């Protein structure tokens, strides 16, 4: 760790893991509610648990991205962060705003929360992933502006590398696209059309730029391969990402009232969206094979490779499974969508933040490069437990989805929604058990940071 | 590097050949030919022209490695798929 101001990333990562644990707990609550319908009813109805689960996911990933950026930019720009104090202030503002929102979801009925936070002035609540009160959304924009200002000034006064420029492009894109969440027309079709500007162009657009930049940074540091080679491939990958992902938005416009040409354009271009993820997998393994040195933090390298593979599986393969219009006609809004959602978010974004945490935490806690061998072994156990259990969660949900589509949509004697839900209950039980294994893996991950012991091998960072 | 210029240059001859092939494609259709023979004929001409572009214009004929077989394979595969779609 070359610059003191990189330490600012530490609270962000700690908060990220804390919120991550909260997210998984509410995920387990919902998983149980799927099979025991009245679990925690009416205290925490399903929709409240879901809001907490999805909002915690997005907030902790944003904390992770911010922490990664605060760690990377000073090192990439070879200068101290412009204002560490501002970074810490924004950290507390964002944490408090997030916590209050979650408490708001849990403490009062949602309609009451909308009333209390003056949603009538500028109604933006009540939409999936964008359930935050309008004032929280404004708080997020303020935090984003301060965050981008802080990083922008650092980059301007320091060295400009491709990795930092790509990261900044992704973060600025993220902030600009979030502004569409303030547009909530009374026309549902228009509302949905531009809602996808926030959701799709985030997770299949600018977030992939952030993912690419962080992965490139970690690979440069851990494999020692020449920066020129890695940045060259980074540009090729993110070019393919935007080329396929932007028109790929069309695969959300099939059944929401938009003209039917989206079925052609959306299918063709979203069918190509796995290509950048496949290139990222080849890129990651290639760089690790051509490494110039063996970095002592083998756990971080494992996370990096795992990210590339799981991103390709979850976002690429599982995405392609239901992206073609004729298929999507039957699987739209079924458990297949949920299966893709779980593995894509975990594989692409959860794992890259964990990669960054795994790589930076030892150095931010005073070690040269890596934790002790013992702690890395525990961390690798956590990696495999979480990753394998996520694969199973996805497989079980896919099984439930296929049955649901077959019974409720594709058959000539379609059965009612709830009848089918009872028929697929077995998959929901198995998904819940896999969720418990995931929580074990996550707790093991946290424990691994507290296992002491001699630092692994004398090699310096 | 002395240059022996054969008149006219090979790429010029290729260019003229492709112009003629294109004209044939158009003429065949104008003469009212249609159905199976038109499709096969026109598709074949298109693939030949494609191969000429790949070999002479893109210059892959003089490049070792998988590039030329890759693009030739692309043309053949695409041609087969289109023929299949039109006939089967």
């Amino acid at each position: 760790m070359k610059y003191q101001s990189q330490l600012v990333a530490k609270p962000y990562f700690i908060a990220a893991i804390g919120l991550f644990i909260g997210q998984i707990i509410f995920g387990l609550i919902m998983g149980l509610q799927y099979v025991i319908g009245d679990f925690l009813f009416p205290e925490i109805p399903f929709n409240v648990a879901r809001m907490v689960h999805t909002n915690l996911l997005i907030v902790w990933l944003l904390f992770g991205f911010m922490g990664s950026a605060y760690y990377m930019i000073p090192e990439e720009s070879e200068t101290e962060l412009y204002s560490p104090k501002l970074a810490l202030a924004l950290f507390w503002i964002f944490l408090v705003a997030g916590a209050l929102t979650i408490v708001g979801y849990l403490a009062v009925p949602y309609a009451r929360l909308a009333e209390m936070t003056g949603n009538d002035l500028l109604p933006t609540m009540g939409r999936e992933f964008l359930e935050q009160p309008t004032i929280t959304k404004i708080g997020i924009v303020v935090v984003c502006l301060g965050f981008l200002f802080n990083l922008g000034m650092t980059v301007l006064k320091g060295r400009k590398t491709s990795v930092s420029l790509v990261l900044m492009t992704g973060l600025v894109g993220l902030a600009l696209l979030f502004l569409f969440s303030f547009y909530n027309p009374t026309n549902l079709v228009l509302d949905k059309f531009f809602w996808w500007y926030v959701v799709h162009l985030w997770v299949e657009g600018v977030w992939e730029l952030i993912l690419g930049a962080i992965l490139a940074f970690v690979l440069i540091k851990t494999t020692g391969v020449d920066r020129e080679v890695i940045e060259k491939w980074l540009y090729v990958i993110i070019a393919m990402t935007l080329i396929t992902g932007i028109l790929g938005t069309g695969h959300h416009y099939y059944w929401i009232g938009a003209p039917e040409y989206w079925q052609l354009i959306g299918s063709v271009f979203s069918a190509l969206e796995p290509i950048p993820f496949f290139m990222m997998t080849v890129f990651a393994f290639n760089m690790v094979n051509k490494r110039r040195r063996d970095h002592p933090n083998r756990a971080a390298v494992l996370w990096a490779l795992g990210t590339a593979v799981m991103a390709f599986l979850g976002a690429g393969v599982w995405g392609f499974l239901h992206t073609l219009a004729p298929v999507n006609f039957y699987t739209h809004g079924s458990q297949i969508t949920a299966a893709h959602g779980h593995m894509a978010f975990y594989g692409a974004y959860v794992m890259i933040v964990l990669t960054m945490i795994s790589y930076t935490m030892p150095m931010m806690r005073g070690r040269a490069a890596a934790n002790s061998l013992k702690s890395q072994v525990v961390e690798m156990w956590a990696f495999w437990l979480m990753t394998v259990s996520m694969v199973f969660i996805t497989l079980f949900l896919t099984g439930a989805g296929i049955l649901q589509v077959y019974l409720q949509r594709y058959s000539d004697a379609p059965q009612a929604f709830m009848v089918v839900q009872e028929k697929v209950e077995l998959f929901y039980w198995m998904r819940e058990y896999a969720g418990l294994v995931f929580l074990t893996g996550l707790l093991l991950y946290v424990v691994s940071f507290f296992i002491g012991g001699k630092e692994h091998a004398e090699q310096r960072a | 590097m002395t240059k022996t210029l054969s008149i006219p240059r090979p790429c010029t001859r290729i260019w003229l050949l492709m112009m003629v092939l294109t004209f044939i494609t158009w003429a065949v259709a104008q003469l009212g030919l249609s159905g199976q023979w038109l499709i096969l004929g026109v598709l074949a001409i298109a693939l030949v022209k494609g191969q000429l572009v790949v070999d002479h214009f893109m210059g892959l004929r003089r490049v070792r490695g998988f590039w030329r077989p890759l693009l030739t394979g692309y043309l053949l595969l695409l041609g087969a798929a289109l023929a299949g779609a039109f006939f089967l």
Partner: protein
Amino acid sequence: MSGTFTKSMARNIFIGGSAFFIFLFLALSFDTVRALPERDNRHNITDQVALGKKVWEDNNCVGCHSLMGEGAYFAPELANVYDRFGKSTEAIKGFIRSRPVDGIPGRRSMPQFNLSEEELDAVAQFLKWTSEINDAGWPPNIQG
């Protein structure tokens, strides 16, 4: 000569390719927004339907239900609930009004939202309006 693979070329392709496809996407989006009026049933948006959308959002219905396939998958799809309930807004209102406060033992149950008569009418009209949008014939059947 051939065989080079430079970062500057890769960056140019990133910038050129992204601009190219952003332009295409904006052009298509512009065409879509222009074409929507004859598809999205906007001429039937009354104040009541607008209020219905607000009631739908203020009570976070999308937290359990999906609407036009988007939302949660815990409870039934509601884009065609108006048709499924025999094209009767009264049936929809009756269902919402009659949700038991403590739910149904052992089964998933919709909370009692204590909506006023006006709000019930509004959300029922909103769901009726949604079912009339030309969404390319989705969902595949009445079960949604």
